[in-house]
Structures are given as structure tokens and as C-alpha cells.
């Protein structure tokens, strides 16, 4: 668990929601995508306005201002906490509590972008993100926001079939969880690795070091732990 960069937000009900903060690379990519979109928007609209002489030039400058400072604010508030670039990479801006970002927080984090930008090219922002386990830039710290991956990761699937069998010895909770989770990852692991892991857990099954059916037996234990009791039980 400690390898993961999860942060938890406690709810009033006393449960911990786990949020997955997005690291440097997806956020830089999202920024690049947004930057591209902004450039395209600017030139497309300028082409329309540029014909208008002084008035057009004035509107163009205003548009530049709005795109520079309020593009992220508008999208973060309108589109469920994500600019188009963030949406492309599956990111979202949320409050530290896991709730949707508030208008004030969105404005704070985007005005303080200017501080992140210093001394040049988002130097302080990048440093702050590399420094912290939750990848906050300065604006995020002041606003109390977090950029998280919106989707969840599905690593675990259905258990492969096996006849249930009781474990060879009483298992601690952590061991039980490890065995069941191992079994649920059967679809994603290569068979060789799957077998290798099963041999490591051989103390849970009464088998010697070289038992050929360690995997099957351990799968049986996993089924047994989930509560299946077949007639094949020991």
C-alpha cells in the first residue's frame, strides 16, 4: 500500500475515500494539450476579430486575457472539474475532501499559477509537484485542491475455477487477503508468474516445495476463503 501514491480523505461517516493524485507527466501532457487548444482558439477567434480594426484588436487582447487566466476556471467549474486537456488524460480537479472543486478554489489555484510559473517555465510548480507525495503545485496547496485520476483501476477479475479446499493452517487476515487478491489477478498475470507466486504461498497448502498442483490448491483455498464449501474439501 505504501508504494501507492494514494491520498485518503475522511468523510464524516468515518470512512476513508482514496483518491489517486495525478503525477507530473499526465499533468504536463494535459497542460500541453490545453495550451494547444488555447492557441488554436486564440488564432481562430483572432482571424474572425482581426478584421475589425481597433475594436477587433481590443477584443483580441481581452480574449487573450480571458484565455490566459480564466480558461481553466471556466472549464473546471462547468465540465465536472476538468479542462479539455485534463479530460483527455482522464484527470479531474477536486477538493482535498474529494468533493467537486468550488468556484473560489478554482480561481485561487488558477491565479496562483503565476507563482508556479516563476522563476520561469513553471519552475516552482514543477519543483513543488516533484517534492510532494500528492503532486500539488503551489496553487493547489493554497486552494486545497488536488488533481486526481478520475477513473478507477480494475486489476482484479473473477476467480479461476478450482475445487474449494481448506487451508493447511489458520491464516491471518492479511494472508487471507493476499491469497484472494492473488487469485483474482489470475487473468492479468502470466501463468508462469502466477505459479511462482503460488509456490511462495505454499505454507498455506499442505504441499512440498515442488508440488505440481500448488496453483490449483491455492486457488481452492481462495475459494474456500470466500466461503465456498464443496465436497472436495479435505
Amino acid at each position: 500500500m505504501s508504494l501507492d501514491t494514494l491520498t485518503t480523505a475522511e468523510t464524516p461517516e468515518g470512512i476513508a475515500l482514496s483518491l489517486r493524485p495525478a503525477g507530473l507527466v499526465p499533468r504536463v501532457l494535459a497542460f500541453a494539450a490545453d495550451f494547444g487548444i488555447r492557441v488554436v482558439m486564440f488564432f481562430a477567434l483572432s482571424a474572425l476579430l482581426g478584421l475589425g480594426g481597433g475594436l477587433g484588436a481590443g477584443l483580441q487582447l481581452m480574449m487573450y486575457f480571458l484565455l490566459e487566466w480564466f480558461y481553466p476556471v471556466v472549464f473546471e467549474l462547468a465540465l465536472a472539474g476538468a479542462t479539455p486537456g485534463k479530460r483527455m488524460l482522464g484527470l479531474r480537479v477536486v477538493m482535498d475532501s474529494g468533493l467537486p472543486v468550488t468556484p473560489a478554489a478554482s480561481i485561487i489555484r488558477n491565479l496562483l499559477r503565476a507563482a508556479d510559473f516563476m522563476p520561469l517555465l513553471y519552475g516552482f510548480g514543477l519543483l513543488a509537484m516533484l517534492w510532494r507525495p500528492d503532486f500539488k503545485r503551489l496553487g493547489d496547496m493554497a486552494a486545497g485542491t488536488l488533481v486526481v485520476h478520475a477513473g478507477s483501476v480494475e486489476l482484479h477479475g473473477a476467480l479461476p475455477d478450482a475445487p474449494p479446499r481448506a487451508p493447511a493452517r489458520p491464516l491471518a487476515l492479511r494472508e487471507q487477503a493476499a491469497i484472494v487478491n492473488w487469485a483474482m489477478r489470475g487473468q492479468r498475470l502470466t501463468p508462469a508468474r502466477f505459479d511462482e507466486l503460488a509456490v511462495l504461498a505454499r505454507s498455506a497448502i499442505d504441499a512440498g516445495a515442488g508440488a505440481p498442483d500448488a496453483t490449483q490448491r491455492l486457488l481452492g483455498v481462495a475459494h474456500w476463503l470466500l466461503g465456498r464449501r464443496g465436497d472436495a474439501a479435505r
Partner: protein
Amino acid sequence: MTPLQFEAAYTPLWDELQAMLDRVEGARPRQKKDQPADKKARTKVKPAPIDGARLSVLYRRACEHLALAQARAYPIGLTQRLEQLTHRAHQLIYRRHEPGFGIGRLRRLLLVDIPQSVRAHRGYLLVAALLFIVPTLLVGWACWRDPGFILHLMDAQQVRNFDQMYGPGADPIGKPRSAETDWQMFGYYIQHNIGIGFQCFAAGLFGGIGSAFFLVFNGLQGGAVGGYLTARGHGEAFYSFIVTHSAFELTAIVMSGAAGLRLGHALIAPGRRTRLEALRHASSHAIVVMYGVIAFLLIAAAVEAFWSSARWVEPQVKYGVGAACWALVIAYLGWQGRPRRAADEKGPDAG
């Protein structure tokens, strides 16, 4: 209880919760699309009426089940499903139910929140104003005594530009400008001046040093130009140009500096909070001042583009309007939004 029994016993509850969440969340994006019709956006949640009491009951049950599942090390698939359900329900239940940026909210912001929040920052305002005014006066005096002093701060080309702009020479700033140029300058002032205000605020994050730098720097520049032009005898052209919009612009620069200093102060002297907590607290209050800065700088940009540059207006009229604007700004920041006498006791402490 084995995981399978647990799942079998409570799946109906979870399914019900999930169906409820799907209905509410599914209803919203569809509504979003016809948002231009404002009335439809208002009735956002109504098309899918759900039983709030039932929702909260289901949510609490799901929370209990999640806690049990985690404590008993049930399989990850099960806890993940419960985590997702509780996460979604939590978002739905604890979402802020305020109507965003409606007219009423804007009204309250302008009439109450901004002036109150500015007054709550009066200490920072004082420091920011001193940081701005003292260099202005010192350099202004130095340049007035010896116009050559300005060359310590600007290069000769810039100084020549100022001479041209405000002098009686060929290209005075107030020459009859077309409306088109006015618009162009309006855009420029918005883009440039509000950007500076934002930077002045953001730079305060570094212990307030950045905000102080912006304040002193702008003070030096303004003082130098003012002192120099006065000494050269172009005073009237210059002061009648700046007197009106400076009421909004200079106040806004000082306000953004004060907001920035507040951030810096929170970091340096967090008091009884952690530094991060203090910063978060300070920025949530300072941002209201920044709303005021935005409003002021928008006004300043409009005034500077369309009024200050109008040469056909007599300087005396401009001084009069300028004085009225200064009085207006000070009265707004000083008295607007104070609670009535009866409510004085529990006057909100925006600081």
C-alpha cells in the same frame, strides 16, 4: 460471515444505491446540453426526483459495509465497489448546493463581501500602501528636483516617449483619437493591468516578497514619471490624464499587494495552524479582495481608455470627476456593506 454471504445479503441495497446514483448523475449531463435556456438549467435535479432520506440511509449503510469489508479484509473487488458507491454518494450529498455565480451572488459580492473583506485586511492594506506610496514620493521628489534622476530608473528612449506623450509636442496622448483606438487601448489595459494585479497577488506566496517588489517597483516608476513631468512643466497634461482612473487602478494595485502580503504572512507566521492550513485559510479570504481588484481594474481600464484620454474635456472637469471617483472609492471601501446597528454585535469577521 464469509464474503459471499456478505455480498449476497447486501447486494440488493448496493444495487438500489447504484440505481439511484445512476439516475441523478445521468440526469445532469443531459440537462447540461440545453443550458442556454436558463430556466431549464435551474430545474437541474428535478427531472429525477429521488428520495433524499432513502439516499442518505443507503449511503450510511454502504459506509458501514465498506468499513466492515476493510476490517475483515474482504476481497478487493468487493471493497472497490463499495468505495466507488460511497465516493459517488458522498459527492452527491456533500456537494455545495449554492447556485454558483448568479446575479444575487454577484450583488452580494459587490455590495457586502468585497468591501468587508477589504476592511478586514486593513493592516495589510496599510503596509501595501506604504510600500507603494513611500517610493513614489521619494523618487517623485528626486525627479522633481533633478529631472535627470529619472535616467537611473529608465532609459532615455522611454523618457523621450513620456515627453512626447504628455508634452505639448506633435503627438500628445490626448489628440482626438478614434473610437477604434480607444477600444484597442481598453483591451490592452485589461490584458496588461489585470495581469499585473494577478501577478502582484500570486508573488505574495513567496513570503510576501514578490508582492512587496511589485508594489515598490510600480511606485518607483510612477513616482519617477510624475516627478519628471512636473519638473518639465507637463504636470497638467499628466495629472489630468491619470487622476480619474488612478482612483481605481492605484487602489487595486495596493489591494492586490495587500492580498499577496496576506498569503506571505500566513506562510511566515502561521500562528496556531500548520503552514499549509494557514495558507489555505488566508487565500480563501484574500481571494475576495482579488474579486474587488478585478472589478476595480475593469473600471479603471474603461475609464483610462474612454475618459482619461479624451482631450476635449477641460482639465478642471477631469480633476473634479477624479476627486469624485476617489471619494467614491474610499466611501465604498470604507462604509459599504457594514452591518446595521442592531446587527453590529455579531458583525461578521471576514478576516
